[in-house]
């Protein structure tokens, strides 16, 4: 490995010897693709013809009026195929898998969006597919498990550790170590060993490129600020990378969970509770104890419930180029409710972190100003989680009724 992928000392490639040759091969394939002008073109064509890009930039007039500050534009990754920004990265890596001649992909998933996107790509590209998902997430995101399996993927429920995203990542790496020749690991966020942070950003940067063009067209100016939620950091890196060279403030919203004081959150950069560590192949900020053991994390949004954060975002914080804030579960649920009622948009719980942070801040900006919020995904797929977050009584009655129906049917079949 030649370029170790460091950003202000964050990043690197801390990989077991068994994967060194595989990472060399991946880096070569990625460098080769980047320098091939037809590659980006074929990627953008695929994203247009299969995923419906470019996604729109929508002016949220009612919300803007309500807050009375900057005009709020929303980048609509919810309208990307499979319902989130995850497909941008997955389709790009799929093209690389084809170039490398591999036949099988594995992936981790937390919320299930990345798993569904990967299973979709694998079905389209004719690849075998195994998805690793923490047992906790399998339970809270069951509908996505259903879709992954319908799409032909094998879903493995991971029962180790905290049984969430980080444990799914460990298992995906272990699978890759056992099958390095046939298999590619489609890592779903801008974390992990080099070249993943750079490569995932390269594919996700399509968001920022479109958004910059669109905001100049529609608003006639650059935004004052761009907001994105931050799990591992892929949607944030995607939209931020369109504005890195502009006088635009970049704001990342992390999961404040039950509050930073509660210990039940996933804020690695905001609030100073993360510390520098090396895990899952990269050096960045992690939520860990004094011995270096990773702590349990919590968020209402499964996709943000993760111990580490992109080394490139850690670098942007250190250099002062981006700012990070924590948003609590209850602020997120309120922001989501408001967005649905005022705009008829249904952001994913992950994305709603970015909305909530923007809502806190837009009043402080002038009416002529513009901000962009990245709606990284749609929330209607998370109906179980959202209905629970809203404590919706009608939904509860429906589930109870369904359960009774299934129970009665099984009883009937059992006695027949």
């Amino acid at each position: 490995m030649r370029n170790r992928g460091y950003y202000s000392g964050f990043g690197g490639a801390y990989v077991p010897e068994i994967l060194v040759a595989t990472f060399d091969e991946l880096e070569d394939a990625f460098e080769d693709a980047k320098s091939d002008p037809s590659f980006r073109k074929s990627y953008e064509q695929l994203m247009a013809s299969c995923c419906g890009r470019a996604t729109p930039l929508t002016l949220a007039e009612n919300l803007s009026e309500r807050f009375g500050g900057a005009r709020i534009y929303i980048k609509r990754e919810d309208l990307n195929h499979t319902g989130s920004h995850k497909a941008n990265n997955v389709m790009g890596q799929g093209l690389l898998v084809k170039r490398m001649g591999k036949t099988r992909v594995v992936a981790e998933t937390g919320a299930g969006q990345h798993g569904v996107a990967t299973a979709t790509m694998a079905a389209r590209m004719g690849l075998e597919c195994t998805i690793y998902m923490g047992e906790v997430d399998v339970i809270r995101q069951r509908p996505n498990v259903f879709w992954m399996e319908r799409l032909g993927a094998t879903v493995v429920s991971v029962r180790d550790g905290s049984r969430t995203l980080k444990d799914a990542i460990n298992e995906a790496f272990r699978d890759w170590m056992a099958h390095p020749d046939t298999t590619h690991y489609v890592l779903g966020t801008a974390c992990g060993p080099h070249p993943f942070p750079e490569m995932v950003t390269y594919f996700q940067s399509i968001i920022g490129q479109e958004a910059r063009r669109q905001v100049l067209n529609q608003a006639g100016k650059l935004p004052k600020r761009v907001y994105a939620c931050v799990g591992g950091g892929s949607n944030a890196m995607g939209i931020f990378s369109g504005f890195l060279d502009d006088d635009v403030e970049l704001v990342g919203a992390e999961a404040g969970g039950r509050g930073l004081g509660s210990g039940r959150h996933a804020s690695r950069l905001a609030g100073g509770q993360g510390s520098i560590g090396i895990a899952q192949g990269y050096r960045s900020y992690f939520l860990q104890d004094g011995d270096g053991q990773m702590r349990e994390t919590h968020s209402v949004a499964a996709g943000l419930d993760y111990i580490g954060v992109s080394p490139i975002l850690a670098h942007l914080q250190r250099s002062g180029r981006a700012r990070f804030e924590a948003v609590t579960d209850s602020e997120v649920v309120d922001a989501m409710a408001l967005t649905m009622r005022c705009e008829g948009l249904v952001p994913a719980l992950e994305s709603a972190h970015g909305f909530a942070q923007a809502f806190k801040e837009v009043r402080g900006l002038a009416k002529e100003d513009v901000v962009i919020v990245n709606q990284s995904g749609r929330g209607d797929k998370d109906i179980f989680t959202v209905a629970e977050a809203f404590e919706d009584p009608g939904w509860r009655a429906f589930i109870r009724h369904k359960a009774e129906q299934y129970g009665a049917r099984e009883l009937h079949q059992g006695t027949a």
Partner: protein
Amino acid sequence: MALESYIKARRRQRDVLLMTHIVIGYPDYGRSMQTVEAMVEAGVDLMELQVPFSEPIADGPVILGANQRALAGGMTVSGCLDFAGKCAQRFDIPFVIMSYYNILHRYGVAAFADRMSGLGLKGAIVPDLPPEEAREYLNAMDRACLDPILLYSPNTSDERMAYLAEHARGFVYCVARPGVTGAATEFSEELTEYLGRCRAATELPLAVGLGIRDGKGMKYLRGKADIAIVGSHSIRTFDEQGTPGIRSLVQSLVAASAIGPP
């Protein structure tokens, strides 16, 4: 005595030496100490003591489970180092530490190395730290007169084996097949050819790990490597048969490794 000369001297009496592995604090502090005692009494040549980590990415289900159990039991890094120091004091064989890089990083890499040296340990195995990322670690180990044990794998090129050999000390840990710890290995022609490449790449003793369970593995290694590593299988044996099972496992492996007709 330094690891390399210890191994070479010991090899004059036996064809293949035995290195066993334990996770410190599995299933608890006391019983992991009893396991070490049983292994030493049964004739093991050297031991690898794993400091548990919450994200042991190169370990399979058995060792992963042992890491989690040890942590859930409250095992701390300083508790592990005390344990390792006691082993080095009580038993007359070399001990090396195995852990993941974050454990050393959080402790302070130089402080960790100095502490290992102060406790009488001989070296360390850090499977998620390739030498490209290891300048601080390699310097600290060198200053503390400890051996950084590096890994080879079947897909390591000859060129890279030579590069790794420049930084490795003590012995080289040869992973026998792709994958994590715990699964069985076939003693195939490919494995023989790979061990031949390892042998050609370094003068250091070769230890072969991943999947060795019985005397067959020991016999296979005669003339091909210097040390057999038994990891997951000894944990499985402990789980099924307790300390007596460990004792007879180690005795039978040592018996299979005496000098004699192949």
